[in-house]
């Protein structure tokens, strides 16, 4: 059930061993605050082979990306019969939940199933070694006393024009799932903390590889860009709005019956049933 380019035409409940790997470049158009928690910190890692590099953990990109997908699907009134939002109210039956997964137990919907993420990522690594880290002192002066008190802090940031490379992988891609992921990667324009002020970025998909297993990693790509990348424009992806609606309809077929889906019946395992 694949098309000429090797994409699946439908969504199935079992993996079919195909991986679309998108090589993604994130360029900072402004300074960005990429930190784990401490205010005076910027995330770097010293590799033996690569030297000291700025890094962005995948979970920071994934969280933002998922919010972008959910934002877009809300515009299209998906899901129609319930709300879906991070972090406690995942509906477990919309395109965002299908793509990024979810645990039914922790959601307010209390679904009896979990969804495994179809989108896999990895640490984004800066293309160049760390040379300078910019610091910014923020204060808030009381107009009457002209003092700052506790409202004085230093923010440490990754400098403008830093380029990061990462690989985002979509398992068992259809054209529609790819269209949703690609559109929302391109819509990812802010990253990190305090994005109302900082963290303007440009996200580009440099190319893709479709294979029966994962072959690319950002660790290798920052050392040497692979020569056999395909151009994402050659895919001629369908409009993203149509893709969201088509995927939303398709999910119902794979979810268990009794959970709003049309798939296999939910089995209740009891001691009596086990004896039988």
């Amino acid at each position, binding site marked *: 059930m694949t098309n000429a380019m090797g994409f699946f035409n439908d969504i*199935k*409940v*079992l*993996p079919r*061993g195909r991986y679309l790997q998108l090589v993604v470049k994130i360029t900072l158009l402004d300074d960005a605050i990429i930190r*784990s*928690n*401490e205010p005076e910190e910027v995330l770097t*890692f010293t*590799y*033996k*082979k690569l030297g000291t590099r700025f890094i962005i*953990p*995948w*979970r920071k990109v994934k969280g933002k990306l998922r919010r972008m997908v959910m934002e877009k699907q809300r515009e299209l009134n998906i899901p129609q019969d319930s709300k879906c939002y*991070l*972090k*406690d109210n995942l509906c477990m039956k919309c395109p965002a939940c299908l793509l990024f997964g979810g645990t*039914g*137990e*922790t959601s307010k919907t209390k*679904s*009896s*199933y*979990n*969804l*495994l993420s*179809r989108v*896999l990522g*990895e*640490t984004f690594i800066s293309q160049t070694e760390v040379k300078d880290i910019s610091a910014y002192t923020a204060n808030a002066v009381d107009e009457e006393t002209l003092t700052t008190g506790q409202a004085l802090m230093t923010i440490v940031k990754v400098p403008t024009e830093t380029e990061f490379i990462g690989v985002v992988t979509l398992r068992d891609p259809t054209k529609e799932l790819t269209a949703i992921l690609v559109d929302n990667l391109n819509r990812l324009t802010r990253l990190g903390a305090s994005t109302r002020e900082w963290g303007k970025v440009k996200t580009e998909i440099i190319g893709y590889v479709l294979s029966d*297993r*994962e*072959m690319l*990693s*950002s*660790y*290798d790509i920052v050392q040497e860009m692979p020569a056999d990348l395909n151009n994402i424009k050659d895919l001629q992806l369908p409009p993203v709005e149509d893709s969201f609606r088509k995927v939303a309809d398709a999910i119902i077929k*794979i*979810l*268990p019956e009794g*959970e709003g889906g049309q*798939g*296999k*019946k*939910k*089995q*209740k*395992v009891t001691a009596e049933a086990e004896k039988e």
Partner: protein
Amino acid sequence: MKVFACSIYLLDPLFYAREGLSAAYTPHYLHATAINFAVTAVISPEVTGLDPQHQSYVIGEHNGGRNTPRYKNSLASDKFYFTPARLTTPLKYLPEWTKGENDGFVAQTKRGEVLKAEILNYLPPEAEFKGFLISKTDVVFPSLIRLGSFRGKARLHLEELEIVGVFEKEQTASHPVDPLITKVFRGVMVNMFPYPIVDNATIARGVVAKSQEEQMLRVIALPDEWQLPVLKMVRNGGRTIIV
């Protein structure tokens, strides 16, 4: 039967401990369950013989239960078996604050509550684990696998070893051993999830192998339910053994 030395090189930080029991520190061993199921997740079920439902995108009561472990032990396939692996690079941790958002291993944040998060201690990229692979058939193994709670990328490298003998008397294995797969007489228990493994284990049967470059012999345990390979000794003299 073929035997390989297996190296697993981390490209991403690795975390797989759980707070409370292991204090959120990742153990410096890789369990055989982690390696075998990471590899079988990449290879098609036709090759591994694993029930496809074990890798389903939708996990619920209809296919075995949401919170039910889907394996008895680390033997994922009857065609190949990766032993547990040991960290061979210096142990250092990469601590990172992680807001798990109710992922189960960090505190849940609620409205109006000061943000709660905890430090998870990852093993850093470029750390390397070494173990062994025993393969009954010619399987094309992947070069990249995903490990741990956050499914970080790791590179799998295999080097075929020459089997120079089998043994059926007590020997100390060159690798940590999964006690649910291979009978262990003595050893040092390493506490980790999903169940302990045994390092410096004394085992009863297995194969002896060596690499082309190194003269050092490796003692590798076989799963108890697997038969020892039949080897024909052609010549044995001085430093040379031809099998």
